[in-house]
């Protein structure tokens, strides 16, 4: 089945270390495929966040190569790559001085050079999709955490990205708000958007993921489809992890 899909992100022997001896990505090789929802899980400190932050050059790698749609992730290509992959952060990172509509318009208008008029209808439908059509003119400070994260997802969608990176999108939320964000993400997965999701929400992974990878100490230990992952992950450390959190 993989053979039919195009590789969208390719990690080739990637090493990333903070300081001298703290290796976060340890000679990592990995492919992510177009149209898939790929969930990354693992203990905190395993390097999941760093991995996806390397994809849009928020972190610089020390050696190896990352290719996004065949293009190497370097300083020179950073902006072209960022136009293709949007990111949703753990702590939303909405700009507090702009309404959420302005937040969503900023990237398309300033980075992609699109006109406000062209964009505004499309962004309106995104807001409808996440259920914030009545809140478009609110400032982030006036919204709840769940609403903020949904607005941040709209901001990512507004870029019309080939790939959306989710960096623990529900970790900073109160429990009662996690559901509303996961629902939106499930919808996106159903639409067939390419997503790489770092999360601890195993329920979401089971329902929405096409593939789940388990990371440990800077390496991908296991990658498989969800049903296999939860029943027979094939690796002892994954089993231990699953036992702990389920």
């Amino acid at each position, binding site marked *: 089945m993989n053979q039919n899909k195009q590789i969208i992100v390719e990690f080739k022997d990637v090493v990333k270390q903070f300081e001298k001896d703290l290796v976060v990505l340890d000679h990592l090789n990995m492919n992510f495929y177009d149209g898939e929802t790929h969930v990354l899980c693992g203990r905190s400190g395993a390097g999941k966040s760093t991995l996806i932050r390397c994809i*849009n050059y*928020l972190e610089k790698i020390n050696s190896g190569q990352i290719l996004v749609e065949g293009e190497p992730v370097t300083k020179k290509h950073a902006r072209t790559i*960022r136009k293709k992959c*949007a990111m949703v952060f753990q702590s939303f*990172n909405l*700009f507090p001085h702009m309404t959420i509509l302005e937040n969503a318009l*900023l*990237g398309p208008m300033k*980075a992609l050079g699109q006109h406000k008029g062209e964009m505004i209808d499309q962004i309106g439908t995104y807001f409808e999709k996440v259920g914030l059509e009545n809140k478009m003119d609110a400032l982030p*400070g006036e919204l709840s955490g769940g609403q903020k994260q949904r607005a941040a997802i709209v901001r990512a969608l507004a870029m019309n990205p080939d790939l959306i990176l989710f960096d623990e999108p529900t970790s900073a939320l109160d429990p009662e708000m996690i559901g509303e964000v996961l629902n939106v993400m499930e919808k996106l997965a159903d639409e067939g958007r390419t997503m790489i999701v770092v999360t601890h929400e195993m329920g979401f992974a089971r329902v929405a993921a096409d593939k789940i990878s388990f990371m440990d100490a800077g390496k991908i230990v296991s990658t498989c489809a969800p049903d296999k992952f939860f029943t027979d992950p094939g690796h002892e450390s994954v089993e231990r992890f699953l036992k702990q959190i389920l």
Partner: protein
Amino acid sequence: MSFNLYVLFDWWPQILSAFGTTVFYFIVCSIAAVLFAIFISILLAMRIRGLTTILRIYITVFRNTPLLVQLFLLFYGLPFIGISLPAFLCALIGIMLNEGAFISEIIRGYIESVPKGDWEAGESLALSRFQVIRYAVLPQALRDAVPAMTGQISIVIKDTSLFSMIMISELTRVSNSIYARTFDTTGFLISAICYLLLFLILSVVSKQIEKRFKVKR
């Protein structure tokens, strides 16, 4: 020290025009200083190698030398190397460079305290570094900086009194000249009241601005 009303009756046209001059210089100079400071802090935030060092040196030098010496250098010094600027420009450039250094230091502090995530969010939207600063970071930093900035701007009111020493007929100069002719210090009292008035008006206005521009996070 007593208040003699006759000074006000005899000299009110001069005092009024001096008050106007002070207000004019205050407004023009503080606007110039703020704009210049914003420009400098953008350049600093761009982290252009070499340029940053030069700007750091500029800020350190102008923060740590007296404004009066800077004004004298501009006004009485520069003509000797062939640059004769009119008093207005000397005052403007002097305040712009001096207060600009202070204000840009304030803005820089607030730019640095904008959460790192906001920089990253801007970068992931494929904005250039300048665009991130221009649209995402600077507007927040400026709003946060309003209280500190208005505090610094209220110092510009006081700075205008130094212009009396470079041939500008503002409040302090006129009260000095009233004293030279009448040996009466009421002129100084009047100008003191004018400065306080300006200061109080600015305080009220800045409270409003602070309220208006407060960023909720």
